[in-house]
């Protein structure tokens, strides 16, 4: 029994934080533009995990060795397609209705994705083992007392690469500039000739793709998937986005890693109450720092 602040815990914290970060970026992007808490976002992540699962199973059945990058691409595409469709079918018609209706619709979409997945016989409600060793054979490295597996390395590095790519898109491309402009002022952006609906579609696609990637990464590191796996990580990723300041991409990343670390250390102190630490953080943030760590403080417009 050493101190709880050992290397192993730090590795675990980074790894959980990376998964939260990929999910919470989608939340924060969507919230930044249309002020919608997309409850279904956690389910995009679930869809990504299942897409990867079926891709790996398919190639294993054909006795081929699946390529990690192709599987990653498949799960990102699956997440993006589901995100795009749910925006087009469920959220877009409600764009100019009261915000609460879109929120309720988001809950409906989330339920639809979860229960349809568990009702379809090919997926089913029970847990499935993710065939991670068919994708990448496991290696473990010992660093002092800590154990680092190559799954964790893949997990963290893919997350970092995706976050770098995303930051590049948002900060340095034309469409990224249009996204930032729409988040700042939708009406002004439209007057400047930006096609808002196109930007919103694009935002959902990016968010869904990142969530899908997070689904694959979770499948690799915690190889147990079921149709309801997205609810709790989705909620926690949202908490991370609120902690970092909703609407801010660097904030979402920072918040996710802080949340990942606090959960890992909280669990180490008390496994049952550690589960609730994310919610305690949320309530404290909302009371004392509603704009989050990196968010901008906004007054209410009348």
């Amino acid at each position, binding site marked *: 029994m050493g101190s709880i602040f050992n290397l192993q815990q730090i590795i675990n914290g980074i790894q959980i934080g990376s998964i939260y970060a990929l999910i919470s970026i989608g939340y924060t992007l969507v919230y930044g533009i249309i*002020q919608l*808490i997309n409850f279904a976002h956690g389910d995009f992540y679930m869809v990504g995990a299942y897409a990867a699962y079926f891709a790996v199973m398919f190639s294993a059945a054909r006795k081929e060795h699946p390529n990690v990058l192709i599987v990653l691409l498949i799960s990102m595409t699956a997440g993006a397609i589901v995100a795009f469709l749910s925006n087009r079918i*469920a959220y877009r*018609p*409600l764009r100019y*209705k*009261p*915000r*609460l*209706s*879109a*929120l*309720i*619709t988001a*809950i*409906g*979409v989330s*339920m*639809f994705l*979860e*229960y*349809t997945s*568990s*009702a379809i*016989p090919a997926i089913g*409600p029970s847990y499935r083992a993710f065939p991670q060793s068919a994708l990448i054979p496991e290696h473990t490295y010992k660093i002092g007392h800590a154990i680092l597996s190559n799954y964790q390395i893949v997990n963290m590095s893919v997350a970092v690469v995706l976050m770098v790519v995303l930051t590049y898109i948002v900060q340095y491309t034309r469409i990224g500039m249009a996204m930032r402009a729409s988040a700042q002022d939708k009406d002004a952006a439209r007057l400047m000739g930006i096609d808002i609906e196109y930007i919103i579609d694009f935002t959902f696609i990016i968010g869904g793709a990142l969530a899908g990637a997070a689904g694959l990464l979770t499948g690799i590191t915690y190889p147990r998937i079921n149709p309801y796996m997205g*609810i709790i990580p989705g*909620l926690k990723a*949202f*908490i991370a986005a*609120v902690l970092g300041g909703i609407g801010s991409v660097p904030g979402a990343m920072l918040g996710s890693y802080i949340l990942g670390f606090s959960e890992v250390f909280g669990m180490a102190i008390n496994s*049952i*109450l550690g*589960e*609730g630490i*994310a*919610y*305690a953080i*949320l*309530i404290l943030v*909302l*009371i004392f720092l*509603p704009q989050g760590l990196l968010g901008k403080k906004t007054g*209410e417009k*009348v």
Partner: protein
Amino acid sequence: MKAKETVQDKKIPLFKKRDFQLLVGTVIFWAIFYTLTKFGMMNLYWMHIINVSLIYVILTTSLNLINGFSGQFSIGHMGFAAVGAYTSATLTTIVWNLPSHGVGPFSLFILSVILGGIAAAFIGFLIGLPTLRLRGDYLAIVTLAFGEIIRVVINSINFVGGPRGIPGIPRFSSFTVIVIFTFLSVIVLRNIIYSSIGRALLSIREDEVASELVGVHTTYYKVLGFTVGAFFAGIGGALLAHLIQYINPLQFGFMATIYVLIMVYIGGVGSLSGSIVAAIGITFLSEGLRLGLDKLDQVTPFHVGPEWRMVIFSVLLVATMLYKTNGLMGDMEFKVLIPEEEDENAKHGA
């Protein structure tokens, strides 16, 4: 004699016509099913479903007070029901260890239900006070988180069984008890809605800034509405615990809240009648679908699970939002649920 007559003229009768109709209607409803069960002509399974649907009426109307009438967005309603259920079941089963018969235990049970409501209201007050100052969608997340916290906390308290729950709760929630509580809840909620509190809540829903500018203490009324809603959720939870005789933390999870949310929004925001109809209708539809899907499962070659019920409900919820945003009976009430004084207002378009 003459003075007495003028008093008589101004006196508001104890029972107004519509209240009387509502009471008579409830008594007839109770009498029919009570006699049917007494003579064994009623399937006990469907009787149980009727009991459950009436408890859902309490849960749905009280959530409608928060989400429909005051325009907030709480998605932790079953968390309050859990507080009520656990408070009351802990008292009757663990602390007092009551037998399931007798007048003394029964009155203690009634006391425990009310204490359950008060405990839920207290927790609702604690949650509502800091969060209702924030914008609507943050309340959604906080109440969702609260539902999870309740689950984690109950899981960690060994005295109430932790994750194992409380088994062997005496079955005090008879049909009669549930009918009485449902009737009282609906009447109290109706009276609140048509009182000055209800007007304040409606004005907050329509425009919070404007109502603050005309002098409505918005935070006070929002917290009040939230606390009252939580109180009735606690009552509903306590009754549910003494009906199904077993509770565990998972029963009051997010999915259970969603079920009540669906009833509120399909029934109609701002309509008690809609909530009543939807609570009873959806409970029965859900059971009917369970039987129907079982039949379908035997006929079709592939497996048709009961999960399709929730798929149907989620499609219904999204379709309601897309095509009839206010729900089936949004802002409309059955006439018996509108106090007679309101007719004058309705005529003048107020």
